[in-house]
């Protein structure tokens, strides 16, 4: 897959038509509307219709002109010079130019709590009306990618001048960009209405057409209950719904609706093992643990086989192309005998009355810290329960301990857990490596803490250094392969499945697009068959 679109079915006109209102049920409302503040993929799915990006990532992972017609990177990777498109205007009529872009790119320098602060940008300089120079303090290989995502929304200068960052966060009516749709109406907790920007005439070449969008209006409603979304779709109260649970695909299709599936990029949904404390301080136990999980069987049971097993901590399709190491496919798997012999080797020779393995009188217990909110998505709760109960066969006593999100972070900081689950979506290989680097270890002093296994491995750190700063794709790919091997060899993580975006639409909805991460992209190309 990758940037896939639904194939028009036979009885639908092949030529897009303009007009109509699309009602789309999203599963959550973004808590914050400013893409720079929080790296939420859900907010991207909406902001990508409102904002244009500086550069556009193509289906093959390469970058094409967006609001910047071209860019130049200095050899040391520290200076970026962007030439900007002319004639672009914001929804409020103000023009887009280097000064406005500078305002936008300078934001992290003044606001320490933006998600984009750590991109390494040190200074920006307006060269002329349509040229901006960005200077970095350190090389950042992911900068161009970052500029291709709505995490860098480009706001109208008027908005940035007249409104506080807090207002931008809470009020999407201030989301005034240059994109194909503008925000017409917003009811907190309920819905957001997008209206076509008729002046739009600067679609990047990565899109399917030029000029204004097809749809007159998009009504985005926030409906957290999956069953409610499905009911609404099948009863024609909605044209498209987000996150159809895998088990409901058949039901949706039976109702005559279309199901679009898109694999995500970044990391799979994986288990992060904490190698710092017993029992996972022993590599053999970690590998035994991995061998004891029948990933395929469990996925079949819990997701009806809709989700595919992931072989590595980097997902196929994650840019740059080739970043996923194909050689890892089939390199590991379910093997109870191997698990048993590894455990014996590690000293867990005895089995207690309840069937759990024991070493020196200590039961083989694994504490699994669970973010109780996060596991509610995608039936991960069920998968987790199934994994925990299936591990009993190999003699593991897995105890799932739920924490709410804030306590979860604190709990991980303590480092007393053995296991945690996570997934990170992002269309650049760097993000699939960061969760295993020393710098990402959660600590109370700093660090964003996405290294749930608290892994600190010099080999991975070194490879990440290359991935994050090298501008040579091949160098980055090699380093990424090295990391993937290292993680599997050492048993730092158990990759589980490739997350999918599963969108249900009525048969009239055409031209649906997903972005490189696998989330719903701009509604620009979407049209409704009459």
């Amino acid at each position: 897959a990758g940037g896939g679109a639904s194939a028009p079915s036979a009885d639908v006109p092949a030529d897009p038509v303009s007009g109509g209102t699309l009602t789309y049920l999203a599963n959550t409302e973004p808590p914050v509307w400013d893409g720079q503040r929080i790296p939420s993929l859900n907010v991207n799915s909406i902001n990508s219709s409102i904002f244009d990006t500086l550069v556009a990532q193509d289906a093959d992972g390469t970058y094409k002109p967006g609001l910047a017609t071209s860019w130049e990177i200095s050899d040391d990777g520290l200076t970026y010079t962007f030439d900007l498109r002319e004639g672009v205007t914001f929804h409020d009529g103000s023009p887009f130019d280097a000064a406005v872009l500078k305002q936008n790119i300078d934001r992290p320098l003044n606001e320490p709590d933006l998600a984009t602060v750590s991109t390494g940008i040190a200074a920006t300089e307006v060269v002329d009306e349509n040229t901006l120079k960005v200077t970095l303090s350190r090389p950042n290989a992911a900068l161009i990618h970052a500029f291709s995502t709505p995490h860098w929304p480009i706001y109208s200068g008027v908005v940035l001048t007249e409104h506080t960052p807090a207002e931008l966060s809470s009020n999407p009516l201030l989301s005034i960009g240059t994109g194909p749709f503008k925000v017409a109406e917003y009811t907190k907790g309920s819905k957001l209405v997008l209206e076509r920007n008729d002046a739009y005439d600067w679609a990047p070449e990565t899109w399917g057409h030029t000029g204004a969008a097809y749809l007159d209006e998009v009504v985005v409603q926030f409906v957290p209950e999956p069953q409610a979304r499905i009911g609404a779709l099948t009863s024609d109260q909605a044209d498209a719904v987000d996150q159809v649970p895998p088990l409901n695909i058949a039901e949706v299709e039976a109702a005559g609706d279309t199901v679009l599936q898109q694999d995500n990029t970044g990391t799979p949904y994986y288990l992060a093992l904490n190698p710092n404390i017993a029992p996972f301080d022993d590599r053999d136990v970690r590998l035994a643990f991995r061998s004891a999980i029948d990933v395929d069987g469990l996925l079949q049971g819990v997701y009806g086989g809709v989700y595919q097993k992931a072989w590595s901590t980097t997902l196929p399709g994650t840019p740059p192309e080739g970043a996923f190491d194909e050689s890892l496919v089939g390199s590991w798997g379910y093997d109870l005998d191997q698990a048993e012999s590894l455990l014996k080797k590690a000293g867990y020779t005895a089995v207690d009355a309840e069937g759990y393995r024991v070493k020196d009188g200590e039961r083989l217990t694994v504490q699994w810290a669970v973010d109780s909110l996060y596991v509610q998505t995608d039936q991960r709760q069920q998968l987790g329960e199934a994994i925990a109960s299936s591990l009993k066969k190999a003699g593991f006593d897995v105890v799932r301990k739920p924490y709410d999100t804030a306590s979860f972070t604190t709990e991980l900081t303590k480092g007393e857990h053995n296991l945690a689950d996570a997934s990170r979506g992002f269309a650049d290989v760097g993000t699939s490596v960061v969760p295993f680097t020393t710098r990402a270890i959660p600590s109370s002093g700093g660090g964003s803490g996405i290294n749930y296994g608290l892994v600190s491995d010099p080999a991975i750190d070194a490879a990440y250094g290359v991935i994050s700063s090298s501008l040579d794709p091949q160098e980055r790919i090699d380093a990424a392969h090295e990391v993937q091997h290292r993680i599997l060899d050492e048993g730092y993580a158990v990759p589980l499945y490739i997350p999918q975006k599963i969108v249900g639409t009525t048969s009239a909805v055409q031209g649906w697009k997903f972005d490189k991460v696998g989330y719903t992209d701009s509604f620009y190309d979407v049209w409704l068959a009459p």
Partner: protein
Amino acid sequence: MTLSLTARTAPARRERVPVGVVVALAVIGVLVVAAVAPGLLATQDPLASDPADAFAPPSAEHWLGTDQLGRDLYSRLVHGAWYSLSLGVGATVIAVAGGILLGVIAGYARGITDRVVSRGLDVLLAFPEVLVALVAIAVLGPGQASVIWAVGLGRIPGSARLVRSQVLQVRQSDYVGSAVTLGLSPLRLIARHVVPNSLGPVLVNAVLGVGVSIIFGAALSFLGLGAVPPTPEWGLVLAESRQYLSIAPALSIWPGLCITVTVVAITVAGRWAQQRYVSRRSSL
């Protein structure tokens, strides 16, 4: 008065227990058995999962079929009785105990103590029960015990207020006056007359509160803050099953039924106790 008097003097005429109450008491009996000795009723391990056998229809092996992980629904519900009942009873015990302590202090002590405690109760009453529960769970961490505390704590103010108003009534009564003229010490007075006579409606209310707590616990589960999976607590089973409503509606119907039937049974029994109490009271 004359009326009930004759009724009381003729113990030969036994009160007839309504059919509904008999059924309710029978249901409660079964629930207690399920809670105390689930092994007697359950047919399978409530936690043993087999994802390959998910959503199986009812069969001789699985009386009510299996759930999303292939666990036996019937056995899960039987084992769930303990969680739901202990939640209802535990929370109520906390609410009543706290209520009696605060209520007796407020109602018996006059003046500044009463004012302070009563105002304090006002403040607590003003707290949204959901928030009290959420904060309690956040502080105590997840788990059955936390949920019991969370629900129980949230209900203390209401219960304390009830106790207080009862104590106020009792202490104004002639018999307390008579006891004072006999020279009873305050502690004896509270122990012998005030507390026992204030307790009636409080206890009846407590019985009804068991049902309320169970429902409240279920709502917490819905919000993802209640029982911890894979606990077969009914509220949680129900909350989890809603994801499969269209593919396996029976998964929701049974736990929903368990909760409703339990609460109805407890309420019917509680009402009946209340009526008996009130009629005994009014005939006094």
